[in-house]
Each structure stands twice: as structure tokens, then as C-alpha cells.
């Protein structure tokens, strides 16, 4: 995938104005809509551009994928390049997932609500940390920047597990 920020004509930053993102998507989708063209070749080109715009919008709409896209643009480690997680994190995830299945099976709504709030708080905390780290990385070069990008990767590694928990609770 190319640079989705460039595709949509937006600055490469994490804290995007989501209303502006949506507006640009709508405008570009309309500009490149194949129905605007009569020639078959022009239509095919437009369809290709539309697909690129759609993909860029999907990449930027969701904060997790936006962070991954920005990290790639900034030259940070990709998913799988750095699998580090905080010490003991996976054990905790395992325990929470076991408890989650229990309370879901029991239909214990109060416990499910409590877990949902906890997962949301954890997701929010990770995304907040990611936002702050992007600001830190943006103003720096060299080792400070590399360290911030690595820390973003690790926050995103942990975030994935909370996203999966949230999916499970929504299902």
C-alpha cells in the first residue's frame, strides 16, 4: 500500500481531524467515480483510483490501523518485526480471556459490563500513549526518534490483544 495520508492529501499525523478525513474521502470518491467517465479505459483507471482512495480511507479511519500506517510512513518497526510485550502481559491476557469466557457463558451481565469498561479503558490508555509517542517521535531525530517508534510498536502490540477482547465482548 502507498502512503494513505498522501492519497487523501492529509498531513501524516496521528491526531487527524476525523470530520476532515471523511470530507476528503467523500470528495475524492466522487472525483474518481467510474460513472463520471464514458470511455472504458478511463473508467478502468477511475475504478483503480477509487480502490486506492477506499483503501487509504479504511487505513486511516480506525485509530489502530492509522497508527500502523503512520508508523510505516515514519519508518518504524512493522507488525511482527518487534514482538515485544510488557513482562507478564500474556499471562494476564490469558487470565482475562478465561474469565471473560466464564462470565459470558454464565450470562453475568454486571461482570461483562465491568470487563467491557476495563477493556475500553485499556484501549484508550494505549491509544493515548501512542498519540503522545508520535508527537515525541515527530520532533526528534536519531536515537530518541527510533526509541519512540519502537515504543509505539510495543503499545500497538499490546493494543491488538485489547482489540481482540473488545471483539469478543461485542460478539
Amino acid at each position: 500500500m502507498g502512503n494513505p495520508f498522501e492519497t487523501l492529501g492529509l498531513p501524516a499525523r496521528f491526531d487527524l481531524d476525523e470530520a476532515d478525513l471523511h470530507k476528503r474521502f467523500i470528495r475524492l470518491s466522487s472525483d474518481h467515480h467510474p460513472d463520471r467517465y464514458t470511455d472504458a479505459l478511463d473508467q478502468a483507471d477511475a475504478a483503480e483510483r477509487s480502490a486506492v482512495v477506499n483503501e487509504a480511507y479504511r487505513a486511516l479511519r480506525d485509530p489502530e490501523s492509522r497508527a500502523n500506517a503512520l508508523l510505516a510512513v515514519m519508518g518504524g518497526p512493522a507488525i511482527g518485526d518487534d514482538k515485544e510485550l510488557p513482562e507478564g502481559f500474556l499471562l494476564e491476557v490469558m487470565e482475562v480471556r478465561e474469565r471473560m469466557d466464564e462470565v459470558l457463558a454464565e450470562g453475568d451481565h454486571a461482570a461483562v459490563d465491568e470487563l467491557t469498561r476495563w477493556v475500553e479503558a485499556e484501549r484508550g490508555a494505549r491509544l493515548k500513549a501512542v498519540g503522545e509517542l508520535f508527537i515525541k517521535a515527530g520532533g526528534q531525530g536519531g536515537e530518541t526518534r527510533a526509541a519512540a517508534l519502537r515504543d509505539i510498536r510495543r503499545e500497538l502490540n499490546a493494543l491488538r490483544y485489547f482489540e481482540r477482547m473488545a471483539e469478543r465482548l461485542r460478539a
Partner: protein
Amino acid sequence: MAYSPKVVDHYEHPRNVGSLDKSASNVGTGVVGAPECGDVMKLQILVDEETGVIKDAKFKTFGCGSAIASSSLATEWMKGKTIDEAAQIKNTDIVQELSLPPVKIHCSVLAEDAIKSAIADFKKKQEARQAQSVAK
């Protein structure tokens, strides 16, 4: 994407789901995760401390069908093997047995990591015990 019949079989009838006492000296526990997808897998082995033979193996996986099938198969294969034999199980063996498509290869890698991590945990416990008995 369609799952292979073997994956479906392990997914619908997972073997050896459960837990062993992780504080026992003859139990090795491995907990591993895949940040690409957020899957988490726990694999435990109960080992005969005299012979090194794996007498029981249990797993718990929160992940997709392929991750569950990979860990289920891993526990099946490990039972009755010595820890050294079990350490030879390769993710490619799992890929082949379950006919996993390329996008699901990381699930088999996760299972191999879990096997290695459970064996390493058991060995660490044994070494700690031996060090203790020497010190006595």
C-alpha cells in the same frame, strides 16, 4: 477462505483442552502470543521426571480456528514423546498435517513457540530443583 477438514475436526473437537497445575515441578507451561492477530495460546506438559516422557499435555487458545487446531494437534503429538523428541516438532509439520494456507502459517509458528516455551519452563524448573538438592 475454507478450512481444511482436519482443521475443522480439531476446531470442533479440540483434544486436550484444559489446564495443569502450573506451580508443579513436573509441569512445564508456555504462554505465547501473536501480535499480528492478538491470539494467545497456553500449552502445558506433564512430564515423567525420571524418563522425560510427556505423560499429559493440555492447551487453551484464544484465537482463530487454525490457532486452536495447531495447538490441539501439538498436544496430541507431544503426548508419549520425550521432551527432546517433542522439541523436534516443527511448525512446517503442523502446516503440512493441517494443510494450513500461507496466511495461517503464523498459527503453526505460535504452536511451535508454545511447545518450546513449555519445554524450556519444565527444564528451568528441573535445573532449579537440582541446584537446590545439590545445595542441601
